[in-house]
């Protein structure tokens, strides 16, 4: 058996059924049914081979309670230069903590219109994606008309705030950009557990559209973050996404990008810092369906203690997708004897005029580099922090939004022991 039944989570099942009944939505019913068929995945399921989900499967989950945001927690999550902030707590919109909605942004809720969701996402074999569809209560739709742009970044904050019982929550973010439209959407996932969150973001880009997307995972140590991002791109559109992980217990990101129109470009980046027994799992699939598309994937992990990271990515080049240019990179830095890294960078190619490369490296901090800095009087922890930052900066410097870049850099530096001694000037942002 690759899975374990979800029946142990009675309260959750009941709540899901109630939601399905209430919404009269076929999608919810289907997701509910599929959820029971799939059950909780185990390690024997190839897609979850590196995740330890026993504890999750044994927990009696409930849907998160209705509550409001903790203001101090929110203040710590603010991103400079971002005035538009939408706050969700346990999957539900918190109007008091949020700023007014700009043009082109609307809320989907409390009961989502089923024609809006799962237009792009198609994760029929993923328990958590099904759970997301079955339990979604609120969502955000960012819809920009042809040749329009939302100039400011939209910051979506999701806080998990369970009471005493372990709870689940989800939020649907839908980004739909018209021809040559532009938008930038930032998501922050924070809050404490015990919690299971199942974020789901769907991106649909028309010809020439340009979307910047970032997901920051800053949960407490007892949060399971099982998220997904699905994107579909028409000709000459660009999708730039980055996932930064600096919190949580198990963080899994399932990202599927489909380059359907000629000349589309997708960049998927990820950086994660491990801690204690944290596990960071990234499963990507970039499908080149049309000629002359380009894609870039770079995922890096810094792994101390018992932390682990798994990177499984596939570049799929369809027949006739000539002129494809795809690069896939996975790099891991192991900082302790007990940290582990697994990489499976895969290529599946059915066209001959293509340029596809992938690279994976895993190792420790370069002793030569460390010696060089030590010889110049840099204390060891600072030297390590500097080298770790150099490792991270390859991902961060590629992020196209300057304010986000600064924010990510600060977040990462705050996690590195010894980095406080680094002059901000050293870290070129």
């Amino acid at each position, binding site marked *: 058996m690759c899975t374990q039944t979800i029946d142990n989570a009675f309260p959750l099942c009941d709540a899901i059924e109630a939601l399905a009944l209430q919404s009269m939505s076929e999608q919810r019913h289907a997701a509910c049914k599929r959820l029971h068929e799939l059950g909780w995945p185990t390690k024997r399921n190839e897609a979850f081979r590196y995740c330890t989900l026993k504890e999750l499967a044994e927990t009696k989950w409930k849907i998160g309670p209705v509550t409001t945001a903790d203001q101090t927690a929110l203040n710590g999550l603010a991103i400079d230069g971002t005035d538009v902030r939408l706050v969700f707590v346990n999957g539900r919109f918190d109007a008091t903590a949020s700023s007014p909605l700009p043009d082109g942004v609307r809320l989907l809720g409390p009961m989502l219109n089923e024609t809006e969701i799962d237009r792009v996402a198609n994760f029929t074999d993923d328990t958590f994606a099904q759970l997301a569809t079955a339990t979604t209560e609120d969502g955000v739709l960012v819809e920009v008309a042809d040749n329009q742009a939302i100039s400011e970044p939209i910051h979506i904050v999701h806080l998990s705030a369970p009471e005493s019982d372990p709870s689940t929550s989800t939020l649907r973010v839908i980004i739909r950009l018209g021809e040559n439209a532009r938008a930038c959407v930032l998501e922050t996932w924070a809050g404490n557990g015990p919690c299971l969150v199942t974020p789901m973001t769907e991106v649909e880009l028309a010809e020439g559209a340009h979307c910047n997307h970032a997901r920051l995972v800053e949960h407490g140590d007892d949060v399971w973050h099982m998220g997904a991002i699905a994107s579909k791109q028409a000709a000459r559109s660009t999708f730039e996404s980055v996932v930064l992980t600096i919190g949580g217990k198990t963080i899994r990101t399932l990202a599927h990008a489909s380059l359907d129109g000629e000349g589309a470009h997708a960049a998927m980046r990820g950086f994660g810092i491990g801690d204690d027994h944290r596990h960071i799992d990234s499963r990507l699939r970039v499908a080149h369906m049309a000629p002359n598309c380009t894609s870039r994937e770079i995922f890096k992990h810094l792994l101390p203690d018992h932390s682990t990271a798994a990177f499984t990515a596939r570049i799929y080049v369809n027949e006739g997708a000539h002129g494809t240019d795809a690069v896939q990179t996975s790099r891991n830095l*192991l900082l302790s004897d007990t940290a582990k*890294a697994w990489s499976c*960078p895969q290529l599946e190619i059915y066209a*001959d005029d293509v340029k596809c490369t992938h690279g994976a490296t895993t190792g420790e901090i370069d002793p030569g580099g460390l010696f060089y800095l030590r010889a110049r009087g840099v204390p060891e922890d600072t030297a390590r922090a500097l080298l770790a930052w150099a490792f991270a900066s390859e991902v961060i410097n590629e992020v196209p939004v300057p304010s986000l870049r600064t924010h990510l850099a600060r977040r990462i530096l705050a996690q590195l022991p010894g980095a406080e001694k680094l002059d901000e000037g050293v870290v070129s942002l």
Partner: protein
Amino acid sequence: MSNDSNTTLDQWAEQSDYKWGFVTDIDADTLPPGLNEDVIRIISRRKEEPEWLLKWRLGAFEKWKLMTEPEWAHWPDHDWRPLDYQAISYYSAPLRDEDRPQSLDEVDPKLLETYEKLGIPLAERAALAGVAVDAVFDSVSVATTFRDKLAESGVIFCSFSEAVKDYPELVKKYLGKVVSRTDNFFAALNAAVFTDGSFVYIPKGVRCPMELSTYFRINQMNTGQFERTLIVADEGAYVSYLEGCTAPQRDENQLHAAVVELVALEDAEIKYSTIQNWYPGDENGVGGIYNFVTKRGLCAGDRSHISWTQVETGSAITWKYPSCILKGDDSIGEFYSVALTNNYQQADTGTKMIHVGKRTRSNIVSKGISAGKGHNTYRGLVKILPGATEARNYTQCDSMLMGTDCGAHTFPVIEVENPTAQVEHEASTTKIGEDQIFYCNQRGISSEDAVSMIVNGFCREVFAELPMEFAVEAKALLAVSLENSVG
């Protein structure tokens, strides 16, 4: 498309029915198709095996019955159907002389043409085509001649059944120690029904005076599709072993499920080279061998070294992963591979390098060439266990695509559990550029020769690892296999 392939498969199935029926009727020493305990007992009795080996076989069979045929291989252009294991005959005596072609005149002229292109001596051509040739070229006697010479240095090189009789202690000590009898579906099947194979033992400190090869015993190998090879290099020993044939064999077996086990003790080195050119099926993908082989080497001692080199141009489906378990400290594992698929051939091949000991090193160079509707998949694992301090791996996988209907796929898995390890993986996919061909044409080189030249350049790193004669043959073989693949 699906209709067509159904028809061809049906035709193919018909052929195979005919084939097995034919064998059953005429030869008293051939078991009827089917697999059960009795068949295994009969095989064991025919081979006059000791009781422990029979038990070992039966144990494997018990496990095999509980296993299911794996389905994970990546064969996009092959209408794969699980095999009917009860339709295969598991024991067949060598072809009797009167059943073989009596002279080269009776051999398929297409086959002879290929031999001609490969530059194989006339006498060998006859042997390869399975012609009943005179005693001088009888492979068994040839092997025996060399065996005396080998015995002078204490090297044991004999068939597996002989080894079971003459060196039971050695066989018992090492059999199944690297590829256990229940390792995987095909290995378990092989353990239950293997009929013969090769056994090599190189004593302490001996450098084997010549390159050993199964080439000489090719007729014997024809007897069973489940052969088992066991090579043991004792402390400080060295052996280079060549496997396979240099021309298309008229092998009628559908399934070829062999097991190869290598054991290298302290300071020992084993170099294992394969040129695999089983019948690949015709241009429409009808027929051909299913080559499902388990090959694994154990670097048991410190500073031991195992090197796999393979050139895979044949078989309808190839499914093999020659691997190394690097247990001894400072041990080295190497894998060099060229896999070529043309027409409807599918190759899913690669290696596993399991780093257990300290300062273990592994090097993987894989070159895949796809033409026609062929698909080539590299599937590999590099695993660094927590104790493998300062382990080092470098992997390079390059693919070349020729034509628009073929595919090249790379599925590596890298698992690192020790921070001091350095693991690198690189892969690239290219095609032969029109500018390259144009450049050659301009200088009076035909397109076909240009392709052959470019492909040989692409594979150079692997060919450099092959023994001299093999390298020459490998180059010729690639050229033959790629014929008509470029307009």
